[in-house]
């Protein structure tokens, strides 16, 4: 069936089977492989994307369910020059990245949090990452990187 959606600001129409997930649509039909598949059952958050302003697990969204929606994937998060944005740079600076498989999802969860709550406490950051598993870092540095970004963005706005 024909699925029309906006991905990272670009309007796209793509022919795809009705029973595949948004994750498969992004990776296999749109070649946006930055979104990762971990568990495929909603438990790890590696497939996190922002759909109509809300964080979702793209492995638990049916591709046609996203028809008419606005999707932001990790490919849509970057600085104007195409390099890392402030959150991504902080992940690098705070040593929040090891193997990297969870990181696209972590960045999406971080951006979704900062969209809805620009002044999160550390506890709120932890809760916002509750659906995102990381086997490597122990989370501290990830929380640090999001906290630092929130503070910097507040500084810029104030």
């Amino acid at each position, binding site marked *: *069936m024909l699925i029309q959606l906006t991905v990272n600001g670009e309007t796209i129409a793509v022919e795809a*089977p*009705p*029973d595949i*997930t948004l994750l498969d649509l992004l990776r296999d039909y749109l070649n946006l492989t930055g979104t990762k598949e971990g568990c*495929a*059952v*909603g*438990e790890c*958050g590696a497939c*996190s994307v922002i759909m109509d302003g*809300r*964080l*979702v*697990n793209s*492995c*638990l*969204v*049916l591709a*046609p*369910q996203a*028809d008419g929606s606005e999707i932001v994937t990790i490919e849509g998060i970057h600085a104007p020059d195409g390099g890392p944005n402030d959150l991504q740079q902080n992940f690098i600076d705070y040593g929040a990245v090891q193997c990297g498989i969870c990181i696209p999802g972590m960045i999406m*969860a971080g951006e*979704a*949090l900062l969209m809805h709550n620009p002044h999160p406490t550390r506890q709120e950051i932890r*809760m*916002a*990452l*509750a*659906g*995102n598993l990381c086997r490597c870092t122990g989370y501290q540095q990830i929380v640090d990187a999001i906290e630092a970004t929130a503070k910097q963005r507040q500084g810029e706005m104030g």
Partner: protein
Amino acid sequence: MFDYIRAKSIDEAVALLNDPHCVSRPLAGGTDVLVQVRHGPPSFQRLVDISRVPEMKIIEQRGDEIYIGAAVTYTEIIESRLLQETATCLVEASRLVGGPAIANAGTLGGNVANAAACADGTPPLVCLDAVAHIRSLNGWRAAPVAELITGPHQTALHRGELITHFTFPILPSSARSVFLKLGRRNAQAIARLNVAAAGGLGADGRINFARVVPGSTLSHLRRFVEVETLLIGEAPSTELCETAGAEAGRVMVEATGRRWSTEYKEIALHGLVACALRRVFHLEN
């Protein structure tokens, strides 16, 4: 292989669900259904997406009742001012469902229709004496949530029926409701035990309203009227909450018999119910 179609209204959804040529099931947030299709071949030929039906997204007060559309998500419950004021136990339960991505997609209707024993949305609904409103080709029917859910993953819903919304009477103004969950960790954890409780005091300072609904406990989710009866007419105290907790444990053991998990569950339920009631009656420091 299965097909997908999006319904724009309740009428259209019900017509699609009853299409004799195509075995169809509702799709709301997909957080149960899409996990199930990962684990085995689907029992349907088509999913009818009801997640965007406007009439099923309503949260409002109608007279002295609260109305919640079945396609309302946990995030929408958490963000609702009205529910924060009138259904604290449901808001607290919603905050503990999955992580944010699950809360953004999962719906109350899906939670009830899926009827997992460990569900977090159902004990608050039973605690609030909520009624499910159901549409089919035969028209409307209403069923208390406590009767609609007949056992673990079992409901009295018939093929082609759609839960459209829930209603519950607003609690007495003196009453307050809470929800507690015991999981292996706070978030994204399936409840080992949970409890929704509500209570209120009369002008004499004695309990005149009490509801206690432990989840993941009995094969049939219900109010523990035995515990409620024990509370009514008493002045709230930590000792009373302990007695009520012990009674909840006793009721559970009486119903389920002793099993390998009872030693843990009895103590845990006792503690959880006592703690919930202390919060209800402001006895927590």
